């Protein structure tokens, strides 16, 4: 007899044993009212299938919307594309009177987007220059240095920055930032750096690339910062501890243990910020000065791809003008898709697919 842990008394009698257990097969029983009701409900196959297809339809409509937008942009920019081709993005015509290159000339029907590409790039680059160090600084502070009780409120404040609408940034920039620059920064910059050619004295308004760059920097800061924080938090603690165990100071630990590991993600965060800066419209439109020329001085008026559309679309003179603006819109569309996709790829690589909650 094998050794078993169950005593005989615990076992139940066999089925069919004389103490009155029910027979092995049940007699057909009258179904209760509940059972009857449920039996009558059917299998809802149609409702299930219908629901499934409804959800698929809505999901596909998201697809459809993006396709519609893309198609519409392509169709409407066709006219300008036919007329100018790739030249649209760089070739100027020569003004008959002055002999100077003319890029955007609604009167004579010549359109080249180079000034706007230039403006977008310059303002975005300036914005990144200002925003990236600050954003990483804030991220480092909040993730590694900040006392626990301050962290939530400070993080909340940086995220509030992201919630402020563009037009309010623009409003503030027009009435506060621009006069500030005009009175205090510009004269100083011209005096100190005028020799570089990047700061000249021909624009007394205070509008221009620098204003646009600064306000853009404030606007893209929250994205870069919060994503950098996410990426830094994703670095496992073991990395930090390993560096500390070697006797590193806190900054050395941050630099070697965290930032080095997170650098791909940080690059992604920066690129995402760039993507946002490229498409930003309202605040930039209000302070960039809106001049369709290419000038070297950062203090001069300029225009960005987004701002020229905002300014000229409503009163576009003729189909070609409108088509040219549409083509600029299409270019913006494509560029932002590529930039955003690339950025998300980088961030995903570091956070392994945790959803990048970006404003």
């Amino acid at each position, binding site marked *: 007899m094998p050794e078993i842990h169950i005593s005989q008394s615990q076992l*139940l009698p066999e089925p069919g044993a004389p103490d009155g257990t029910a027979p092995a097969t049940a007699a057909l*029983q009258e179904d209760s009212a509940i059972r009857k009701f449920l039996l009558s409900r059917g299998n809802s196959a149609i409702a299930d299938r219908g629901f499934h297809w409804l959800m698929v339809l809505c999901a596909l409509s998201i697809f459809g919307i993006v396709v519609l937008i893309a198609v519409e942009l392509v169709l409407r920019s066709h006219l300008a594309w036919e007329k100018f081709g790739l030249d649209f993005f760089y070739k100027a015509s020569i003004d008959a009177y002055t002999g100077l290159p003319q890029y955007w000339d609604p009167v004579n029907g010549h359109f080249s987007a180079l000034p706007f590409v230039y403006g977008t790039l310059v303002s975005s680059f300036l914005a990144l220059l200002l925003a990236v160090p600050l954003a990483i600084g804030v991220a480092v502070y909040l993730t590694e240095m900040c006392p626990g009780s301050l962290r939530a409120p400070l993080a909340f404040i940086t995220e509030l920055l992201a919630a402020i609408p563009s037009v309010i940034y623009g409003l503030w920039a027009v009435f506060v930032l621009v006069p500030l620059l005009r009175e205090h920064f510009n004269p100083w910059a011209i005096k100190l750096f005028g020799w570089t050619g990047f700061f000249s004295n021909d624009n007394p308004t205070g509008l221009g690339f620098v204003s646009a760059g600064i306000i853009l920097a404030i606007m893209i800061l929250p994205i870069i910062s919060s994503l950098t924080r996410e990426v830094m938090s994703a670095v496992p603690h073991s990395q930090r501890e390993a560096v500390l165990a070697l006797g590193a100071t806190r900054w050395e630990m941050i630099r070697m243990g965290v930032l080095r590991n997170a650098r791909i993600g940080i690059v992604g965060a920066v690129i995402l910020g760039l993507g946002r800066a490229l498409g930003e419209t309202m605040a930039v439109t209000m302070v960039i000065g809106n001049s369709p020329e290419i000038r070297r001085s950062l203090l001069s008026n300029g225009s960005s791809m987004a701002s020229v559309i905002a300014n000229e679309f409503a009163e576009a003179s003729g189909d070609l003008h409108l088509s040219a603006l549409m083509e600029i819109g299409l270019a913006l569309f494509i560029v932002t898709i590529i930039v955003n996709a690339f950025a998300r790829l980088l961030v995903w690589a570091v956070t392994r697919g945790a959803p990048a909650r970006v404003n």
Partner: protein
Amino acid sequence: MGVGIEVTNLNAWYGTNHTLQDINLNIPANHATALIGPSGCGKSTFVRCLNRMHETNPIARVTGTVRIGDLDIYNDITPVEIRRRVGMVFQRPNPFPTMSVYDNVAAGLKLNGYSNHHVLDEIVERSLKNSALWDEVKDDLKKKSGASLSGGQQQRLCIARALAVDPEVLLMDEPASALDPVSTAKIEDLIFQLKSQYTIVIVTHNMQQAARVAEKTGFFLNGRMVEFDSTHKIFTNPADKRTEDYITGRFG
């Protein structure tokens, strides 16, 4: 009253994993049948085949026949319909978190369109009494959230929920394994009392539990059913050496 279950040549796959191989057995009506075996032997998969819950996994596949009463559950009716006749209680209690105790018990009926409040009240009361939870919740039925009960109470709530739809078979997948001994004892008492009205199949890791509540026991190993016989015989004089090894604790 419950019905018997007849399983013929049941094979189950999860993708390429042949989880169940050639299972044949007859589960008697109005009895409790225990399924024992080491982890991963397929007993949970087996009970999920009895109410077609394994189909919720898109890579699952089944061949063979399962007859519950006189219905071939794979060919005669749809999964939704069979699950109204074959209730299931899971290993971890899973009451609906946003619903009150009352709504939890009535869920199977309300969500299927039943709305007669008087009858629902009766059914809720009866189900809670049958699952020995009535006294503990009767004052607060509609306000108390299902999730605010203790683990043992939650499991009894799940049993009440399953009973409310008046199933013919009740499947229980290790119903007490996540509970403390007192709750476990309560649930075992419950099974003892319920089996005269329903056919109960209980998967368990706990051999003493099987011995306490079930008349018949099946021993599963590596996807096969090694032995199926009266509990008495399995535990005192098993026919197969593997059963004997498991019973005596040589593995598992």
